[in-house]
């Protein structure tokens, strides 16, 4: 269950990153449409909130918040690396 919290964080940051024109262009060669941008932004924040809920549900409030913060930090770093080295795993 803890892993699911991390994956929601990862998904959340991935969506937030893709809602930015710069990173959307990295993968899809064009900026996102306005509606897509809004969906990705909201979806990203919702996923991060869900990740918080999952962490607290599993580990209690105090440790849950600490764990969620840790997952957020790792997820942000991971998404940045995935975007930087997209040529390894992404075929445009």
């Amino acid at each position: 269950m803890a892993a699911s919290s991390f994956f929601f964080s990862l998904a959340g940051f991935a969506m937030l990153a893709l809602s930015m024109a710069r990173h959307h262009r990295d993968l899809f060669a064009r900026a996102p449409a306005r509606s897509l941008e809004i969906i990705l932004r909201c979806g990203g924040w919702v996923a991060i909130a869900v990740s918080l809920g999952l962490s607290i549900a599993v580990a209690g409030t105090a440790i849950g918040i600490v764990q969620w913060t840790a997952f957020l930090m790792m997820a942000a770093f991971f998404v940045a690396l995935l975007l930087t080295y997209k040529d390894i795993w992404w075929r445009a």
Partner: protein
Amino acid sequence: MAWLHTWAGLVLGWVLFFVFVTGTLSYVRFEIDRWMMPEKPMVSPAGTARDTVPRALSYLAEHGADAQSWTIILPRRRTYEEIVVWWSPRSPGGERGSASLNAETGLPDTAKVRDTGGGGHFFEMHYSLHYIPYETAIRIVGLCAMAMLAALITGIVVHKKIFRDFFTFRPGKGQRSWLDAHNLLGVAALPFHVMICWSGLVLFLFTYMPAAPALIHGDNGERVMEESFPSFFPGALLMAPASATAPISPMIETFERRRPMDMLGSVTVNAPGQTNAEVILRPMGHEQVSLEHDSMTFSGATGALLRDARPALSTAAQTHDMLLGLHMGDFAGPVLRAFYVLAGFASSAMIATGLVLWTAKRRQKQAAHLGFRLVEALNIGTIAGLPIAIAAYFWANRLLPLNMADREHWEVHVMFLAWAAMLIWPIWRSPRWAWFELLGLAALAFGLLPVLNALTTDRHLAATIPAGDWVLAGFDLIALVVGIVFAAIAIRLRRRAATVSARRFEGRAASNTDVRDRLSVASRTVAGVASGYVLTSLFVVLVPLALPQMQSATMLWSSMVSFFLYAATLMAVFHARSPTRAWLWIIGTSAPLTMLVVILLSGTAA
């Protein structure tokens, strides 16, 4: 503001790098202990609390019979599965005794273990350095932590595109890449950086900010701590008639029934063998972050449950506790602890990239200057040299003669001698080759550790993996991986060292050569560092004086928050339009505050 970030980071960066690397290793100090004491048995049986505690008690009854109190620390998940016991003497001159007991026999292990400080030395070094007297050393580290806090805040302020560049990293572009890496490491792990700096400062709260308890209570914070954390300072343990001790097993049973989510962590017996004996059972603390744990107190004579409640702490005390708990990370399970280690290395890497960035920005204009070359030598000798020194510590553990006098201290001497050698080496090598050579040496020093282990002990991979001892095997494997990573970096650097780099980044290379500029900077620095501290101390004293209810809690709050206020003062001083204005502001606010403090203090004293 950028100036403050750069220079606070540079001047203390090498010490900060040392603090963060040794601090990160502290999270795995028990695992390091195990590897450095190969004479200890491999994977020993853990046993349940109900088996191990009575054995420990009988050992204590024999060896600490007339002690004032006994303490039993039960095996954590990650140590030797040994019980640590100690007893404190009744008479002031008596010896405090301690022992490590095997969990199965209840007796000390008979294997003769080599004299070593293990991972504990890293823990001590990261806040009290080495070779420097303790009181001075902790204040140097405190200054560094404070500078880092200021650097973090100014870094955020100066990072104009913090949201746009949140996920951005552009490798292979020289100075741009170093800046991107520094930013990414800083921003992605920002909560950790801020937490670890602030909590580190709060760990020595009244050492670094003594104003409030010194002026209001006239002590070093003892009274504030006693009033805020009552359970840690039990009342005087009086002499009372002797009495048999009630059996411990029902007490443990009650504990496990009432705390199903946690494990028994420690047992303390106050006034053992007397009618007023108390047995305090504390949990391991895996279900909460704070250090203050809900303990259960039983009567030692009758076995009755006396108290099962967490002492009510003020919010200030709870926050203090939470911060210490976050810094120490004792609550963390394996996943979170791995994260702590990664985050700690991310902080170290952030500092390292910052140091390298400083040289990358100024190389074109200042490559010949003595100051520049000194910084570059220090960079190479620290960023590549400190890992080599740490590897040397492990090499010394395996190679120093077992019956050597002061062996434990010589292991540490070897570490610092190696570091000194690595600092000297870059002086006569060109930077590119020095980087390559030291990184290559680091690769060998770590990569060959498992081989050295196999040649000098029988706790090598061929023995530890089949036995399932993943702590020992993990150490060897991680050393191997670290060696490979260093080798990969070194090889990449070699390819670049052979070709001339034509990449130029048009950035502003700051160079302050004007004497007037230097005086202005010096003036602001004195204003910020010295007078800023005075101003912060005034604030710390003023708030509790103005709010005398719950004064201890307010003193805790104002002192904990003071570090951010100090950082803000530093930033304001460097943001002011001129040094004169900065001084006017500081004096203009300090003077009336001083008068106010004097009035309030004499008012309470009267």
